[in-house]
């Protein structure tokens, strides 16, 4: 991808991005200024209480809304410099959304739903369906391609939405509380799927109030009053032991030998 403005290799980049509603005395700043860079293949979670600006940030990142100050780059392109048609094209080709309520079209089958953004982008029906089928296969739903959303479980629908968000050239997924309507086990399956997709080089930004889901991400950011306050990067390398037990137990799980780096001193 071309990089005329030096936005680096980031898949997504916010530079002092702000969103203010209203003007003058009554102006309310919903977000920012926020600086954020998401690398290709990175999985970033954003947490924070209601009204902290999470969804506003996601809307700016997905070009659903424009910053009132600062800049937003997707694939190195400054969204503020794009004509409306170019912006719409970038949204179709680069960005996929996943919402709590699935947002699948009920009159279309799973594979038709996934193929839709490609068809809207002028890809031939046959090629679009082929890509869509491959996408469904990646999320383990190839067998359900011909089903309608009503015949899918909540978890399956959300995985179809993930397949759609990553179909064809799309590689930036923006998810707003995607597990909000799911039970714990199903929500975990959706997180596993997002994790697996990012491990294969796709990029995702997840907004959630659920710390145990945010923990699947590489990085966890915390928004408060529109500003980023914490940034918890994932510790790389070998997994440290969790429990002060000897190794060898637990169906042959190694590496949890004594010393108790964790759980000691309690």
């Amino acid at each position: 991808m071309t990089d005329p403005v030096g936005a680096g290799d980031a898949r997504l980049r916010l530079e002092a991005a702000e969103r203010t509603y209203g003007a003058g005395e009554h102006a309310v700043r919903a977000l920012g200024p926020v600086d954020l860079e998401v690398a290709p293949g990175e999985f970033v979670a954003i947490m924070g209480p209601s009204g902290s600006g999470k969804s506003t940030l996601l809307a700016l990142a997905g070009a659903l809304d424009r910053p009132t100050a600062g800049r937003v780059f997707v694939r190195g392109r400054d969204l503020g410099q794009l004509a409306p048609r170019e912006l719409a094209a970038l949204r179709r080709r680069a960005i996929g959304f996943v919402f709590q309520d699935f947002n699948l079209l009920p009159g279309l089958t799973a594979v038709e739903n996934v193929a839709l953004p490609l068809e809207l982008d002028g890809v031939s029906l046959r090629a679009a369906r082929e890509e869509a089928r491959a996408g469904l296969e990646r999320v383990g739903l190839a067998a359900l391609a011909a089903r309608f959303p009503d015949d899918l479980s909540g978890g399956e629908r959300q995985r179809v939405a993930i397949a759609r968000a990553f179909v064809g050239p799309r590689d930036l997924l923006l998810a707003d509380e995607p597990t909000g309507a799911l039970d714990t086990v199903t929500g975990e399956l959706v997180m596993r799927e997002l994790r697996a997709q990012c491990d294969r080089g796709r990029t995702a930004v997840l907004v959630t109030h659920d710390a145990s889901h945010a923990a699947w991400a590489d990085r966890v950011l915390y928004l408060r009053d529109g500003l980023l306050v914490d940034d918890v990067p994932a510790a790389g390398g070998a997994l440290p032991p969790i429990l002060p037990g000897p190794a060898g137990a637990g169906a042959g799980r190694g590496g949890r030998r004594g010393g108790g780096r964790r759980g000691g001193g309690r």
Partner: protein
Amino acid sequence: MSVRHSLLAILAGEPAHGYGLKSRFEASTAGTWPLNVGQVYTTLARLERDGLVASEGADENRQTWRLTDAGREALEAWYAEPVAHDPPARDELAIKVLLAVAADDVDVAGILQRQRAATMERLQELTRHKRAADPERELPWLLLLDALILKAEAEVRWLDLCEERLRHRDAAGGDGTRRPRRRRS
């Protein structure tokens, strides 16, 4: 953790000798609570004294133990009874936060933020363990991770709640009437 009841639970499956009990206990509990053999033998001696286990005899110096009817009853009663909760006063984090709130010159927000970052890191670590766990072969380990993850998640939520409540307090006491006055040094 009740070593007595744990040994009864393992013996309910089949008779075992002391060392076998130790390894079967640890395998069933994902190695979380290591027992030392001495502890197993002293506990067995007490269980025998109380009539809850009996020796089936010994071979090659190793005694094999089985559950008695009384032992089975004691075990069933243990399973039937919900576990009592520890008194909350043992939670170091809660104590630290409460003391910091009570003092008027401590940066409570900083404490909450640092703790949240640390707990979030632990949550990420636990989740990485979960990703690596095989749900077929390592069910005890997975269940244990779930328990630890939910506890860590609850801690993050509690820290968030503390932060919210303190903000409300500060907003309400903006004129200085409700906040304790800063101590003069």
